[in-house]
């Protein structure tokens, strides 16, 4: 187990270094010059002023240094927790901007992913043994899963937001409110949370349910299930075993889902104008804000790596086959 952990840590460490490097590199390969953009925003005509402003900003962002120096500086400030200054929201520090957005993204993604996983697996497991439920759950599952996500989200926003007026359509909270610790603000937050959450929850639900149903049916046909049945084990025990084994691929699936925390949220946050990481990425790209983009993507990378690392460990605990595969079989 220790050797396994050490190897995993090394692999994830290397992945992290590569990811951070790419993260630093990609914005620099993008067309456009953010400094020019900031200078242009100031709307000065005088060439000398422009030159000195450009110089000021370049020094400030460290863009006047040789490229390798910039790279090293990036790592250095990374370890100090300094992600630079946002160009778009100048002079707000990137770390602050990102940290403000993180709770919104996590707030919809984590409940949506976990709840859809739990509910979907339960529904799927039940559908595998009830013909009636199977005939209802399966078509509904296929329908919901096959729907283009964007369309479903817009449909929800229109249906529950515009037509019925039950929930607000846009924003993380009412534009007239100031964030504060109060019941009225929390209630408002919750109302804005419902639709983005629901859209993600529904889309993921069907897939989990269908997957679980098929896995359980497969497991119930397997040799160990037949053997238990021949030895007179009650159906409950056999299903319990089948469920346990069917969970393994679902756990992998969950890991992959947790990895897409940002990707899933991007469209959601745009449709519902929800102030999370996804919307931040879009704004950063639109405003050619290197530092904000880097900072946001860095959080995403850390999130993906952490999720996978945790699942790797969980997997070793639940499936003995991975254990022998990684530490040398004791045949």
């Amino acid at each position, binding site marked *: 187990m220790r050797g396994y952990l050490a190897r995993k840590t090394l692999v994830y460490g290397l992945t992290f270094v590569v990811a951070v490097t790419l993260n630093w590199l990609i914005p620099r390969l993008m067309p456009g010059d953010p400094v020019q953009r900031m200078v242009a925003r100031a709307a000065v005509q005088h060439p000398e002023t422009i030159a000195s402003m450009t110089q000021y900003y370049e020094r400030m962002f460290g863009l006047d240094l040789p490229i390798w120096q910039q790279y090293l500086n990036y790592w250095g400030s990374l370890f100090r927790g300094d992600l630079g200054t946002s160009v778009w929201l100048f002079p707000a520090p990137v770390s602050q901007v990102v940290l403000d957005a993180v709770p919104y993204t996590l707030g919809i993604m984590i409940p949506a992913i976990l709840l859809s996983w739990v509910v979907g697996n339960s529904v799927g497991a039940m559908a595998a043994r009830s013909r009636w439920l199977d005939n209802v759950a399966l078509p509904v599952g296929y329908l919901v899963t096959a729907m283009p996500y964007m369309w479903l989200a817009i449909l929800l926003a229109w249906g529950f937001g515009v037509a019925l007026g039950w929930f607000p359509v846009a924003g993380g909270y009412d534009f007239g409110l100031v964030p504060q610790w109060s019941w009225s603000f929390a209630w408002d937050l919750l109302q804005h949370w419902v639709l983005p959450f629901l859209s993600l929850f529904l889309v993921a639900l069907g897939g989990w349910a269908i997957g679980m149903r098929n896995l359980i049916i497969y497991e119930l046909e397997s040799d*160990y299930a037949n053997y238990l049945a*021949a030895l007179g084990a009650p159906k409950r025990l056999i299903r319990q075993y089948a469920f346990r*084994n069917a969970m393994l691929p679902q756990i992998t699936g969950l890991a992959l889902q947790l990895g897409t925390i940002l990707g899933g949220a991007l469209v959601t946050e745009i449709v519902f104008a929800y102030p999370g990481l996804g919307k931040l990425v879009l704004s950063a790209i639109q405003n050619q804000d290197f530092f904000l983009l880097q900072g946001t993507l860095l959080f995403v990378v850390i999130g993906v790596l952490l999720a996978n690392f945790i699942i790797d460990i969980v997997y070793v605990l639940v499936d*003995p086959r991975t254990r*022998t595969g990684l530490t040398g079989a*004791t*045949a």
Partner: protein
Amino acid sequence: MALSVTDLRVYYRTRRGDVKALDGVTFEVADGEIMGIAGESGCGKTTLGKALIRLDTRMKHVGGTVVLDDDELPLSDDNAMNRHRYREVSLIPQYAMSAMNPTRKIGRMIRDLLSAHSVRYAEVLPELERRLKLVGLETDVLGRYPIELSGGMKQRVVLVLSTLLNPSLLIGDEVTSALDVSSQKAVARALVEFRDHGFVKSMIVITHDISVLFQVADTILVMYAGHLAEKAPARTIISEPLHPYTKMLIGALPKVGDRYEEQQLEGIEGRPPSLLEPPAGCRFRDRCPLAHDKCAEAPPFREVAEGHHVACWAVS
């Protein structure tokens, strides 16, 4: 009489009609008897083995009775059968290699199974460990996962597990087929030993491999196309078979001392009939050299000598 099967009929339901895999089978297995069932693939031997313990979803119990120790088994009632399974009838399946859940430790699985039969694991544990040692396994296999065991070890664990509650009847389906010859020998010996120790009262061993039966079985039952052909003590089947099918089956086995550069190993011409619409009368008559008009009528399975039953008009 441990087991008495009377006119048992089990059909497979298919879209094209019923496949009559077991069509009126009558025989008895005595206490302490190890009966081997031989026959080519599709003759109904596995169906017979399954019918005695658990019909799968496509199988239908059409008629006949099975009485085990004066108790009729409710073959077609899956829930009622659960009371008899494991305690009275047990099984070593064809797929012993994958019979155990890969994600549960073996001891844990046995504990779960026993508690389902309201038997306390702790009470049985000393006996379980004793039997594991008897088949040459360490008791620490209980703390291992099935993947950590070799094929022969898994086979022996399944043997111990299946017989743990001293069933009256054990059905072993192709018990040795997936093993190399040395493991085959060990398992075959263990089967006989388990009977001798009284862990199992009687056994039905199903295989296509007659040489294994000769090592293990007291009597051999030969099946052909869903019917019984012959049942006799193992030695008699090998040395003095009466049914033409048995003769040809034994004749098709290579023998020590024969030189096959000089003579051809004989096979049996033709194929068994379709069990979807089987012909009336003796089902072997299309391939039988002794066939005559009388064979259009099904021959009875009659005792021609002490413990020797044959279904053939030419013999009786």
